[in-house]
């Protein structure tokens, strides 16, 4: 496959950045998108150019480290697929592919395609956990959880915190991310004692990071590689209202 990549190059946070075109004549349909960038970077390195910086880690779709906007879509054209699990067979020979970093005022560009997503970490730090001493796993039947609630909690726990929701949202909102954490922890008995404090703290932290608000466009859930549903945002809103009315 012969492809043309137009990649966002930005030397650092202070640089204004620009799209730069690269030819990749030796792309293979079985390569992942990150492997395509690896091939390009090998060549750039050999030619003495600066390789393209991008975030990546597990390369099996579960860590949330990778993620770029491909042709205007966070994580590219394939549904429920992270960039590392997107393969070049999704594209055709001769395609011109635009590759850009996540865009949000809360995610500053560090270099090229790498952005600073520590804002999401600070939201987690505000209450995206259950305050108990960890140790060996408790007996599974000690705390009964009804199956539908366990399923909802699990579905939301699959959020990998990649930030695609923020990148896809026209308002750069982190509502889907925050709602996944709140829905996951607030629906389980283990999370119940901190239910109100958690949602108030998470929303406060989310707003403080400069993320936009939700206008219910649904772009986030379409971009989410884990398919976190829009319903989680309704749950977040419900939990926030409940806590704001002073209920514990």
């Amino acid at each position, binding site marked *: 496959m012969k492809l043309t990549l*137009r990649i*966002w190059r930005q030397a650092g946070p202070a640089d204004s950045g620009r*799209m730069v075109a690269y030819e990749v004549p030796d792309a293979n349909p079985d390569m992942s998108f990150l492997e395509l960038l690896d091939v390009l970077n090998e060549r750039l390195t050999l030619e003495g150019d600066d390789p393209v910086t991008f975030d990546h880690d597990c390369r099996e779709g579960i860590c949330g480290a990778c993620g770029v*906007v491909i*042709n*205007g*879509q966070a994580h590219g054209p394939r549904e429920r697929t992270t960039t590392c699990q997107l393969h070049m067979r999704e594209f055709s020979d001769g395609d011109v592919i*635009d590759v*850009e970093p996540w*865009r*949000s*005022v*809360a995610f*500053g560009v560090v270099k090229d395609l790498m952005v*600073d997503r*520590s804002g999401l970490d*600070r939201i987690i730090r505000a209450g995206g956990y259950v305050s108990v001493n960890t140790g060996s796993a408790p007996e599974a039947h000690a705390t009964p959880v009804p199956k539908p609630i366990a399923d909802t909690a699990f579905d939301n726990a699959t959020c990998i915190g990649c930030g695609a929701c923020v990148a*896809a*949202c*026209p*308002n*750069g*909102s982190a509502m889907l991310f925050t709602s996944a954490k709140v829905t996951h922890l607030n629906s389980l008995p283990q999370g119940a004692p901190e239910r109100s404090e958690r949602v*108030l703290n998470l*929303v*406060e932290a*989310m*707003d*403080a*990071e*400069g*993320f*936009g*608000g*939700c*206008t*219910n*466009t*649904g*772009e986030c859930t*379409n971009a989410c590689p884990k398919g976190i*549903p*829009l*319903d989680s*945002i*309704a*749950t*977040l*809103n*419900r*939990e*926030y*209202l*409940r806590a*704001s009315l*002073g209920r514990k």
Partner: protein
Amino acid sequence: MAVTTPTRPAPAARPARPARSSFAPLNFWRSTIGKKTVMAVTGLLMLAFLLAHMLGNLKIFYGRDDFDHYADWLRTIGEPVLHGAWYLWIQRFVLTLAVVLHAVSAYQLSRRDLKARPAKYAHKQRAKAGYAVHVMRYGGITLALFIIYHILDFTSLTLNRHGVEGAAYDNVVSSFSVWWVTAIYILAMIFLGLHIQHGFWSAAQTLGLNRPSRDRAVHGIATGLAVLLTVGFLIVPVAVLAGLVG
């Protein structure tokens, strides 16, 4: 002693945030979800008023006496507990407050939203959201301007061609006999329908009333209300222009 981990760099400067107030409603108003809740509640209040307004308008088809009598009755609601037209002024005050709170929240949230995504993608995003979602802001501004025009036309009668207080029927007929006045109303009511179509579902989402099992029903009610109000409001000006009323 050897240091095995490098010193962590200082975290990047974060946007200043106001300290949490001990007054809970203030924290609520400051939060994005709080402002959206205000928009949802005021929006639903205005929607309830519009339904009553639309149904009342249809009384014009019963003729001049019936319609003028209805318009006059509106000024007597609440009597004798309330003095004449007091109810009307209470309603006007509540609705104005709703419009102002709705608009202020929308303005503050929109400013925040636009600031949150200053850089656009070089490759245009293919929006999955429908047309109604994209015209919420412009549609809202259009509706605000329309409300001012509408009040000058039929409440203060400043712009009304007939402009006789108490002669509601003739005032309506005189305005809608002009084609471009009817055109303004048609345009505004289409924006109203689009605004309600996304707004109603959005309000249910913001108030946390949506569930996957209710999603189709809420979408259905939103579309139903949008069509009902747009058509219901437009029957009158179109009928006047067509010569069926007047």
